[in-house]
């Protein structure tokens, strides 16, 4: 299989039922097209990982792809709840969802540890919080120099990480810029990794010290223009806030949600067709 491939083939080859899967992107560059393709291909029992689940995980949870969610903030930014996520946790619909709930700082430290080949990240955190009472994945270590108690968070090492970036070159080197979130860490902590990009170019012309992922750490690069919609790609298009707002009413009702997903995602062949149906 060549490194530069179609999204369909990449998801088929690298995302398997039961995998732990991280789709990262902090508001910016969220890999929506890849999330849709995972649903289209009917993946099940995924252990989803993401700091801020966002709409794409709401959809995947509602469609029954996920058995578990590792996360730190599950809301619709600036709008309110993720109703499918809530329904899964509150009413176990479409089935129960195991949660591994942390904080942003500890998720970031956990990805960092994963990328750095360490079994845990350490941070000053969780003191006084009730989270450690409910999450056995939050523990504490003692500093052998000062005796201080520090929080420890187990490394995140997904079976597969997926990110969206602005550009790749024909060899599969990837360039992203702007708000880069934990994407580098998500890629470097994963066993396998897929990158969707706005475009494939002859040369990246990356500025010094830019966030570049060399092709040999990436398994598949897929050209998917607009693949972060309704999130955004700095330099390409803005966030479509209306979609985020509309999602609130679509997702509130189970039937309305299922129908919307069927029409827009499951019955389309790819992200382009999804966009067409959405805009028609």
């Amino acid at each position: 299989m060549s490194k530069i491939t179609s999204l369909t083939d990449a998801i088929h080859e690298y995302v398997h039922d039961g995998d732990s899967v991280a789709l990262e992107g902090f508001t910016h560059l969220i890999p929506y097209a890849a999330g849709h393709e995972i649903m289209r291909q009917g993946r099940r029992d995924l252990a989803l990982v993401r700091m801020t689940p966002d709409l794409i995980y709401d959809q995947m949870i509602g469609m029954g792809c996920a058995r578990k969610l590792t996360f730190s903030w599950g809301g619709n930014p600036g709008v309110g709840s993720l109703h499918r996520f809530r329904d899964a946790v509150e009413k176990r619909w479409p089935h129960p969802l195991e949660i591994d709930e942390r904080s942003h700082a500890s998720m970031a430290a956990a990805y960092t540890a994963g990328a750095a080949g360490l079994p845990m990240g350490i941070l000053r955190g969780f003191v006084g919080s009730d989270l450690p009472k409910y999450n056995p994945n939050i523990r504490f270590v003692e500093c052998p120099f000062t005796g201080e108690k520090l929080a420890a968070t187990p490394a995140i090492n997904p079976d597969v990480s997926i990110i969206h970036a602005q550009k790749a070159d024909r060899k599969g080197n990837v360039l992203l810029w702007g708000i880069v979130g934990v994407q580098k860490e998500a890629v470097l902590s994963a066993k396998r990794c897929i990158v969707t990009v706005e475009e494939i170019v002859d040369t990246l012309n990356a500025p010094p010290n830019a966030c570049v992922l060399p092709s040999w750490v990436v398994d598949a690069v897929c050209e998917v223009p607009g693949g972060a919609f309704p999130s955004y790609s700095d330099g390409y298009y803005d966030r479509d806030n209306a979609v985020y707002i509309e999602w609130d009413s679509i997702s509130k009702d189970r039937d309305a949600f299922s129908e919307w997903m069927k029409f827009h995602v499951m019955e389309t062949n790819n992200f382009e067709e999804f966009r067409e149906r959405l805009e028609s």
Partner: protein
Amino acid sequence: MKEATPTEMMTIVAARRLKNRATCFVGIGIPSMASNLARLTHAPEIVLIYESGTVGAKPTILPLSIGDGELAETADAVVSTPEIFAYWLQGGRVDIGFLGAAQVDRFANLNSTVIGDYASPKVRLPGAGGAPEIAALAKETLVIIKHSSRSLVDRVDFITSAGYLDGGDARQKAGLRGGPSAVITDLGVLVPEEGANELVVEQLHPGVSRERIQEATGWELRFSDTVSETEEPTDSELSVLRNLIARTESARAR
């Protein structure tokens, strides 16, 4: 000028607490509005850090999401998420953190996790986000919340972010410094009483009576000896804020 709405009031009261050159760790919504209002009025050199990794953002319109392109473009530096939490927040470089929550209790503990039981919650809230570490590591935090007896409660259902825990020196004993310096609501301002660290009313917004704020609070409120009426928003505060919002709305409509 038209009277301030409750949201405007909260925003202006919060903005007034921000000193020039202060470094603020800012979330979306009122915190972002308040700190940008401060930047456009008395605190031009305030430093705004958003958890998406933008340090020194100077947006001309308000961001809708924590990671809007506007923030990255106007920032002095754009760093990764691990770095923003490790070097900038945990590194001790944040003077003031803003926090919202679904519930705050009499010792200023915050809940943004669940209403009801954790394992089978009545309402599953979005969760912690950056809050526990902001609450623990900013030199000072400001809590902004709409006043109601469901949001200002005697005991939060779940401590997501530590305030003063059981009150007194419990926070300090747990190894935490800082802590909430004020809870700003649409009715007034509550501050932790020295020593006990129980929230007491320090300010009432114009037209708000002691009875009204008590009625909207889930515990028997005490009032500071020096309780005062909040100064009315000035025309300048109101017009800068309203211009900012109008600018934001017109940019978003395009």
